[in-house]
């Protein structure tokens, strides 16, 4: 004795709105909980970093960061450096002379300091307060040198945006999340 099947009734506007509002509210609460859970776990467990092997030195790190001066800085692996007299990370491609005169320097902000060690070796040190993360020196060093200069996100500056604005435009897809207890991807060998 099954009841007679009723033909489908059109849904009234009131019922539709009521059901829609309920579903929307439930979805919203779920999404909020999800975002909260993800954000809290992300903030605690991972940070943004640049993989030096993928970096293509596109210059976006200098211009795309939300900070006025980028959180990305050039860092130097002294173990790899050749301490070259003609450092292609320090000098313009065709310098007038191998001196520290401004017109000979590649860095647009003169953020690299050149110090004589002994003939013919020179040490190169990055002044991070001046470095804008443009990667010009990194390109020079990688193109003709040992590749000891490379870019890293400095976590004393980075605000760890949920969606990193540099990562969004990074031409080499070099940005990735790394564990917060190992926040740097260091180059230790060639």
């Amino acid at each position: 004795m099954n009841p007679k099947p009723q033909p489908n009734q059109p849904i009234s506007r009131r019922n539709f709105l009521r059901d829609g509002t309920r579903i929307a509210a439930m979805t919203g609460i779920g999404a909020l909980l999800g975002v909260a859970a993800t954000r809290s776990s992300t903030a605690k467990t991972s940070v943004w970093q640049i993989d030096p092997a993928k970096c293509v030195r596109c210059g976006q790190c200098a211009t795309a960061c939300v900070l006025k001066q980028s959180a990305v800085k050039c860092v130097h692996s002294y173990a790899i450096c050749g301490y070259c007299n003609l450092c292609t990370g320090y000098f313009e491609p065709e310098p007038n002379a191998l001196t520290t005169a401004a017109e000979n320097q590649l860095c647009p902000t003169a953020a690299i300091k050149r110090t004589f060690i002994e003939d013919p070796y020179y040490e190169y040190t990055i002044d991070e307060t001046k470095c804008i993360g443009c990667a010009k020196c990194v390109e020079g060093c990688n193109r003709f040198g040992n590749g000891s200069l490379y870019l890293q996100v400095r976590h004393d500056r980075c605000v760890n945006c949920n969606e990193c604005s540099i990562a969004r435009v990074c031409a080499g897809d070099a940005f990735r999340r790394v564990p917060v207890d190992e926040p740097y991807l260091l180059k230790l060998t060639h």
Partner: protein
Amino acid sequence: MGELLSHRFVSRRGFMKRSMGAAAAAGLAAWSARAAGAKSGTPNPFAYDVDRLKKTDPKWLHYRQIGQFKVPREEARRLTIGPAGRLYVSAGNYVCVLDAQGGRVTEIALSASARCAAVARDGTVYVSLRDHVELFDDKGQRRGTWESPGRRTWITGLAVGESDVFAADSGNRVVLRYDRSGKLAGRIGEKNKDRNVPGFILPSPFLDVELHQDGLLRVNNPGRHQVEAYTPEGDLELVWGKATMSIEGFCGCCNPIALALLPDGRIVTCEKGLPRVKVYSVKGEFESVVAGVETFAENAKVCDPSDCTTGGLDAAVDAAGRVYVLDLVANDIRVMTRKAGAG
């Protein structure tokens, strides 16, 4: 009235369909905008521009190419020419012996990678297997193995005279002098203030040695961007070379990486990074370009900081003054001859 009702009610299915369509369209638009932003972008205002250095001024190009052929084995590293005009190419675990047109004459099979070779006037072939030297007769039969001189030995260049064999050891930054029986007779080029020898600087393993007709050795000192001339006893007689990216000098961390000698005594240099082959006078005055960067486009791309032993060129000169240029990336040899009336 019925028409009005049909407009007022939206079915759940219809609503879902329209919502999903709108969401998909919005997502696609956002993705395309992001992709376009990342890829098109604006030109890099901080670009490191060396394009102008990749073009050689035609006035310096005094050579033209008259041949090109592949090396029959992979991983070619060094090239030398024997007394009969044959080419000896160290490639993989072989020394390939080729005629001047690239035809295979024979090959010497080895137990490890051949790093370089030199051929004596009597046909004896000296081959570096990184840490020691092995000897072969002109038929490819092994005739001897010399003891390795040390743990860090990495022999990257060999030169043979009437009574001496000189081995450029990149690992220990020294040129070792042997007699023809393999007995160590001297060490050349080690840093020594009393003898005014500055020492070799080798950011990458490219130490080469050639025995010049003037009786002096020519050794490249790539970290100093120089070529040095030593007596067989180890006295430094002459130094030339300038660190610059301009055509007249040597650039990058370490150049020149290889040397060859023309019949009249002028010196051919090979560079990596900006791969080019040039000719200098005996005193070190820049004279001409055998082949510029534009000749070795793939080689110019490959000098990789993750492995600075990749890329580069080597050269050898035959009795007629033709320069054979080995491209380590293309694994081929170009034959260059001087243009009529050049220079």
